[in-house]
């Protein structure tokens, strides 16, 4: 059995076309489950142990079970597909929408059936013009072929805000507001879009559903690293590798295999320094940790996460302080500004990292940086604060000597030769922080 699930058939056929998607069994599962009670879908997903592919790894079937019945809450129920893929290092949802848009639409319609919803919203990031067009064309075909079964599907384009990939920011944005995180509870399952029961899932999660129903949950659950990390992931491999790209692979494959066998290793045979396993918000792995199998439990044992399965490979030329600074700048820029630990903490992190990189910091400020990270972790309205604090703290802990060298030498030990030297952060544009005047104590 082939272990390609989400992108199955996309190499051999043009699955952006309805006719070709139907020729490989497309929309048959939708047809079949519409004749079954919603619980039949949910049971199958629970058997498959499908977990959320956006990064949180939450059981998809259970999430559907959290949706109250129409009798309990007599309001419209909504399905929101999170296609606001914005985590640095991820580009899997882009490929899914570009190459198998019908699988996403079929999955969305099945999800709608499973929670008795008539309304699907696909929130797609504004920068993704080609995927939007692919999805729009596919949706038009589905409309003409009369496959919607009374369900409305709306493609809603974002406009450049990382926070809208966070579920509550997405809902705010979809309601026509600034995309600021909501305080929870209530959770979206009970009070989401327009204060109604709402199911929100990542593109990859939704696009996996039709194949799970085709294979059967039990068979799907044998792929990957059962019992918890079942199935495949689209690993987005980037950074210092020969052949970057999306690789759909069963979970449990080793990081070493991904980097050296599939992605062709590091150009010019340079030594590996570190690798980020799940996107820029995830704690980093050092070169001696890459025999780890890429599944949830194995990465948890190393205090990191599979996240959105974005593997960012970093060779020896990169300065870890510069990496931390650039990552912190990103999250500072993308902080919605609503809660204090994230808004102020990310800015404080940037200031400390700037001082360290410039050689103006003391050793105690390395501990202060860790302390600031600790005061963000778990104390924010949404995971964005953690997304800044977790990775940066991991750089300080794992590359402490390099951070100390910046202090001891009064500047960057790479002397301008780091691969990240001079990376420009567009933090002055549209940042949600007030501009601090020169000379004003920060």
């Amino acid at each position, binding site marked *: 059995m082939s272990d390609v699930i989400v992108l199955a058939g996309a190499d051999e056929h043009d699955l952006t076309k309805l006719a070709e998607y139907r020729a490989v069994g497309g929309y048959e599962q939708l047809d079949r489950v519409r004749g079954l009670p919603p619980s039949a879908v949910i049971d199958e997903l629970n058997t498959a142990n499908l977990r959320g592919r956006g990064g949180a790894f939450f059981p998809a079937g259970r999430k559907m079970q959290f949706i109250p019945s129409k009798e309990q809450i007599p309001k*419209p129920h909504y399905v929101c597909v999170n296609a606001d*893929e*914005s985590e*640095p*290092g*991820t*580009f899997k949802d*882009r490929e899914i929408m570009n190459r198998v848009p019908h699988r996403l639409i079929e999955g969305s319609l099945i999800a709608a059936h499973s929670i008795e919803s008539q*309304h699907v919203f696909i929130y797609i*990031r*504004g*920068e*993704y*013009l080609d995927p939007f067009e692919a999805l729009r064309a596919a949706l038009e075909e589905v409309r003409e072929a009369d496959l919607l079964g009374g369900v*409305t599907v*709306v493609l*809603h*384009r*974002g*406009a*450049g*805000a*990382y926070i809208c990939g966070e579920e509550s920011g997405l809902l705010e944005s979809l*309601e*026509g*507001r*600034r*995309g*600021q995180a909501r305080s929870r509870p209530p959770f979206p399952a009970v009070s989401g879009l*327009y204060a109604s029961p709402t199911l929100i899932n990542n593109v990859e999660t939704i696009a996996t559903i039709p194949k799970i129903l085709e294979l059967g949950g039990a068979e799907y659950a044998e792929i990957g690293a059962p019992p918890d990390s079942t199935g495949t992931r689209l690993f*987005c491999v*980037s*950074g*210092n590798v020969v052949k*970057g*790209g*999306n690789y759909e692979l069963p979970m449990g494959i080793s990081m070493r295999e991904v980097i050296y066998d599939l992605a062709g290793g590091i150009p010019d045979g340079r030594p590996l320094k570190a690798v980020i396993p799940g996107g*820029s918000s995830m704690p980093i792995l050092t070169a001696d940790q890459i025999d780890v199998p890429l599944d949830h439990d194995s990465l948890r044992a190393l205090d990191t996460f599979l996240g959105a399965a*974005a593997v*960012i490979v*970093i*060779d020896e030329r*990169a300065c870890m302080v510069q*990496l931390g600074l*650039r*990552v912190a700048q990103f999250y500072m*820029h*993308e902080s*919605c500004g609503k809660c204090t630990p994230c808004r102020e903490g990310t800015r404080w992190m940037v200031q400390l990292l700037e001082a360290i990189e410039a050689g103006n910091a003391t050793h105690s400020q390395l501990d202060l940086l860790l302390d600031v990270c600790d005061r963000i972790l778990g104390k924010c309205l949404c995971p964005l604060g953690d997304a800044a604090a977790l990775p940066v703290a991991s750089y300080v802990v794992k590359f402490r000597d390099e951070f100390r060298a910046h202090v001891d030498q009064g500047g960057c030990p790479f002397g301008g030769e780091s*691969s*990240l*030297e*001079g*990376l*420009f*952060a*567009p933090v*002055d*544009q*549209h940042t949600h922080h007030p501009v601090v005047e020169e000379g004003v104590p920060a």
Partner: protein
Amino acid sequence: MARAFADEVRELAEQYPESRSAVMPALRIAQERHGGWLPPEAFQEVADALDLTPGYCKGVATFYDMFHLEPVGRRLVEVCTNICCGLRGAQDVLAAFESELGVAPGETTDDGAFTLRAVECIGGCDRPTVVAIDDRHRFNVSAADVPQIVQELRDE
């Protein structure tokens, strides 16, 4: 013209249970109509079409990076400068655009032809450096490619 815009926006709004949800698509259309940015009257137009206030519409627009509150050039050149492109030389690509266009990131050329921006990750990390030109992404751009790209854009 204004009526056509209002009609278009109201039609969009019908897709949503609440018309306010159409504020972002409406701002996008308004931005296109106003040459790529949102002057004060654009907020008034969106507000009129959706029964909101101009201040509310501006408040939404300021949150999102793709809404421009100042005039932009006829072509918008955006270079990804996040870590994946940065590990592979995005700095050099940005510098090449700066020297070719004679402007710093965030600036518009004197003739109004180009605005250059550095942007956060736009999701093409496996094919660095990614450059968005009027929202169309070009991949695997190196500094050496930049003069030809700029020339092509000038010739179009």
